[in-house]
C-alpha cells in the first residue's frame, strides 16, 4: 500500500512538472496563423501565450528552438461540434452522457458537469492535432438540449475553457418530434420559451411555471434569449432555415449559429446578410431525411462564396471520431473550398463563432495551442509530430497506441500478452 502511495506521488509530481508552461519556440515554419499562410515563420510561446509569431519574429536568447524545417505549423485544430469527453462507449448508456431522455430539464442541463478530461477519447482526439473541442448536448426529451461547453484536450482537471458556451436547440423534423409532432408545435414552444426566459424572473414570482419552461430552465435560457449567449440551432431544410433568419431579423440581439444546414446553400445570400454562421459536415451529400433533400458536398463552397462564416466539423461519430474533422476539411477542398478557407473553418472560424478571440490563431496574444505536422494537415496521410496545449507539449500516447504497441509482435512464447506494456 505504501509503495502504491509513493508511486502515485511520483506520478503526480511528474505530471505537475510536465504541465508547467515552458517557453517554446518553433522556427522555419510554414505557418498557418488562422488567417493566412506565412513561410519561414517563427512562433514563440511563453507562459502559455504566443508572444511573437510571423516571419519577423525571433527566438529569445537562451531558448532552444525547434527547427520545423519548413513543416506546417498551425494553431491547435478546433472541432466546432463534438461529443468528446462525455462518452466512453457509445452503446453503453452508463458511459454515455450525451442526452438525458428521462430528464425533466431542458436548457438547465449543463453538459460540462459530465465532462471527463481522462476519457480515452480525449488523447485519441488530441494526438491527431485537435486541441479545442466544442461539446454539445444531445436531444433527449426536449427541443432544448441544454448548454454545451468548450474545452481543451490536455486532459488536465482544469481543461474546460468555457462552461456555458452555448445553448442548443432543435428545429425541423427533430424539433417537431420533440414538441408534439409538428414544426408548428416546435415554433410555438420556442416562442413561448424565449418569452419565458426574457421575462425571467419577473413572471416566475407568482408561479414556478412559465408557458413553456419551468423556473430553472427559464433562468438557464435567459442569457441566450437576451443575446448574451450563443444559440446553436440544428436545422436543415431551406424553409426551416428561413424561419430562423426571420427569428433573427425580428430579434436582432439574438446570437445565432446554425448546425448542419444541409440546404443552407439554397439561401446562402440571406444567411450572409443576416450574419448567421454555419457549422457543417462537408460529407453530408445524401437525402437522408426529407428535410435534407438538397444535400451536397458543395454546401461549404457555396456558403463561403456568399460570405457566410463557415466552420467544419465531423458529425457522424462525434464522440470518438471528432479527429476526422481534418479529413472532412480536406474533402471540402476537393469539393471547391480553398485550402485557406478550409483551414480557417477548423481554426479561427469556430473560435469567432464561439467568441473566443485568442483561440484558433497563432498571433501575439493567442493561446499557445500549436501543432507541428509531418505534411499538409488536411492530407489523410499526414499526422502531427508535436502538439502543444496552452504552451505545454502533449504526449502523443493514447490507449490506442498502447494496444498497438502491445500487438506489434504476436510473440508470446515467454509470457502472455498481459505482461507487455
Amino acid at each position, binding site marked *: 500500500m505504501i509503495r502504491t502511495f509513493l508511486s502515485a506521488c511520483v506520478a503526480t509530481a511528474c505530471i505537475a512538472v510536465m504541465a508547467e508552461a515552458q517557453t517554446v519556440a518553433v522556427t522555419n515554419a510554414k505557418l498557418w496563423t488562422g488567417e493566412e499562410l506565412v513561410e519561414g515563420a517563427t512562433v514563440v510561446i511563453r507562459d502559455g501565450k504566443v508572444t511573437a509569431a510571423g516571419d519577423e519574429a525571433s527566438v529569445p536568447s537562451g531558448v532552444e528552438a525547434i527547427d520545423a524545417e519548413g513543416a506546417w505549423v498551425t494553431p491547435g485544430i478546433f472541432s466546432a461540434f463534438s461529443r468528446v469527453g462525455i462518452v466512453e462507449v457509445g452503446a453503453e448508456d452508463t458511459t454515455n452522457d450525451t442526452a438525458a431522455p428521462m430528464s425533466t430539464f431542458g436548457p438547465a442541463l449543463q453538459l460540462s458537469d459530465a465532462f471527463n478530461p481522462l476519457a480515452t477519447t480525449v488523447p485519441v482526439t488530441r494526438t491527431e492535432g485537435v486541441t479545442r473541442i466544442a461539446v454539445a448536448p444531445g436531444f433527449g426529451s426536449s427541443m432544448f438540449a441544454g448548454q454545451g461547453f468548450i474545452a481543451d484536450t490536455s486532459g488536465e482537471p482544469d481543461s474546460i475553457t468555457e462552461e456555458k458556451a452555448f445553448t442548443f436547440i432543435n428545429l425541423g423534423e427533430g424539433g417537431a418530434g420533440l414538441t408534439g409532432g409538428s414544426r408548428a408545435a416546435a415554433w410555438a414552444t420556442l416562442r413561448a420559451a424565449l418569452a419565458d426566459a426574457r421575462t425571467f424572473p419577473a413572471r416566475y414570482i407568482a408561479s414556478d411555471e412559465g408557458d413553456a419552461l419551468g423556473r430553472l430552465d427559464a433562468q438557464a435560457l435567459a442569457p441566450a434569449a437576451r443575446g448574451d449567449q450563443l444559440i446553436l440551432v440544428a436545422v436543415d431544410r431551406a424553409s426551416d432555415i428561413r424561419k430562423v433568419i426571420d427569428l433573427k431579423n425580428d430579434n436582432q440581439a439574438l446570437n445565432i449559429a446554425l448546425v448542419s444546414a444541409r440546404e443552407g446553400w439554397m439561401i446562402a445570400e440571406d444567411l450572409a446578410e443576416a450574419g448567421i454562421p454555419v457549422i457543417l459536415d462537408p460529407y453530408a451529400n445524401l*437525402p437522408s431525411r426529407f428535410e435534407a433533400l438538397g444535400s451536397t458536398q458543395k454546401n461549404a463552397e457555396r456558403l463561403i462564396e456568399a460570405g457566410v462564416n463557415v466552420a467544419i466539423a465531423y458529425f457522424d461519430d462525434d464522440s470518438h471520431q471528432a479527429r476526422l474533422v481534418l479529413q472532412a476539411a480536406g474533402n471540402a477542398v476537393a469539393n471547391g473550398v480553398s485550402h485557406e478557407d478550409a483551414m480557417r473553418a477548423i481554426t479561427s472560424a469556430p473560435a469567432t463563432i464561439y467568441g473566443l478571440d485568442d483561440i484558433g490563431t497563432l498571433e501575439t496574444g493567442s493561446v499557445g495551442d500549436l501543432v507541428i505536422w509531418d505534411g499538409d494537415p488536411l492530407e489523410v*496521410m499526414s499526422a502531427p509530430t508535436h502538439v502543444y496545449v496552452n504552451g505545454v507539449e502533449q504526449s502523443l500516447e493514447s490507449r490506442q497506441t498502447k494496444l498497438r504497441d502491445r500487438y506489434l509482435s504476436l510473440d508470446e512464447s515467454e509470457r502472455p500478452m498481459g505482461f507487455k506494456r
Partner: protein
Amino acid sequence: MKHALRIAGAAVLLMSAAACGGNDSENDKSNQNQEAAFNKDPYPSTYEPYPSNPILLQDATVYDGLGSVFEHYDVLLRDGNIAELGENLEVSDDVEVIDASDKVVTPGIIDNHSHLGVYPSPSVSSLQDGNEISAPVTAEVWAEHGAWPQDPGFTRALAGGVTSLQILPGSANLFGGRGVIVKNVLSRTVQGMKFPDAPYTLKMACGENPKRVYGYGGGRFPGGSPYSRMGNLAGYRSSWIQAQEYKRKWDKWEDEGGDMPTRDLELDTLKGVLDGDILVHMHCYRADEMAQIIDMSKEFGYKITAFHHAVESYKIADKLAEEEICSSMWADWWGFKMEAYDGIRENIPLVHQAGACAIVHSDSDIGIQRLNQEAAKALADGRRVGIDISKADAWTWLSANPAKSLGIFDQTGSLEAGKDADVVVWSGDPFSVYSQAEKVYVDGALMFDRDNPDFNPVTDFELGQPGEGDMK
C-alpha cells in the same frame, strides 16, 4: 447506433448460375434430380453491360490492383473488357484516346460490406428493409428481396469509384440471410444490377447485436434467446446440426431417389454453405470470438470467407493468415460499442503484414464514397510504426481482396487483359484527400464523368426534388 445494428453477418447460400446451369446430361441421375427438385437461381441476374466504344486511357500512372504500379502506361478497354495494358499501345482508328498523362488509373473499388438499397436514403421507417428481426435465425431471407434500386446512395458510391458491391442484411440476427453482389449500375430492378454468375453469400453475426436484439428485445427482461454470447454459439450450432441433417436427406435422395425431401428455405441456405457453394461473411469484432467461430466452422465442416469489421483482427492476425480468412475492416472506427473499444488505426496494416487477407470496407453510405482515403489513412498509420507497404500493395485492399472474398475475382478486381473493364480514372494520386474519381467505367461503359452533367445519373427519388442533378 444505427450502424451497430446494421453490422451483422448474414448467412447466405450460394445458389449461383454455375450451380444450376448446364446440367443436361441425361445419364446423371443426381443432377437430374437436382434439376427437377427446384431452381437454385430463381431470381437471376438480367444485367448486361451497356454499349461502349473502344477507349484508350493513355500515358497514365496505373495501379493494376495486384501490387504493381506502372508509369506512362496505356490501358485499352474494348467490348466491355480490359483488352491490353502496356507502354505506347498502338491505336486503331476506332479507338477513342483519352489523355491520362496526369491521371491515375485503377481497378474499380469493390465494397464487400454495404447496406445501400436495404437501408437507403431517405432513412424513413418505410424503407428500413435490412434486418428481418422477427427471429434470431433468418437464413431464409435474401437481401435482394429488400433492396431498393432507387437508393440515391448508389450514385454517390459510383462518384467515389465503386464499381461493384455486396449488399448485406444487417447484423441483428445470428444468421441474417443472403447477401447479393451487384454491379454499381442503376437499374429498374435489383435483378438488373446483380453481378452475373456471382456466388451467393451468407451473413452471420457475432457478439453484441444478436444478444441485444433478442435477449433484451423490446425492453422485456428477459427477452428471448440468445441472451448471451453462450446463447449465440448455441444458436448457430443448433442450426448447423439441422443443416447437416437436411443435407444428409438431400444427398441421400440425390443418390437413391425416392420421395423428394420437403424443402426448407432456411436450411437451403445453410446447406449451401456446407456444400461449399455459399460464402460466409460474418460480422465479428473481438479476436476471442473469431477464434470460437473458427472452431465452430471446423466442427461443422464449412469455411469462413471473411470476418467483417474485425476490429481486433490485429490480435490474431497470425491465426487469420493460417486459416486463410479475410478481414473486412475500417481504417479507424472504434468505441461506438463495447466490442469496438479496442479498435486501433493500425489494424489493416498489421493484418496485411501478417500475410492475412486485408479488405477495406465501408458499412456506410458516406464511407463508401471515399474508401481510397480509408486505405490511405491505414497505409500511413502502418508506415509510422515501420510497416512498409507500397501504395500499389494497398490497392489490393480495395479491389482484388474484396473481389476474392466475393468469388468474383475471375471477372473483376484487377487490371488484367480479359477481365471486366471496371476502371476508375482519378484526378490525381488516389491516396490524396484532394483527388477524386473523374471517370468511372463499368464493363467498359462510362457510367460517371465528373466533368459532364450528362454522366451524372439521377435516381427516380431525386427527380423533381431540390438539388436534382446537382454535383453531389
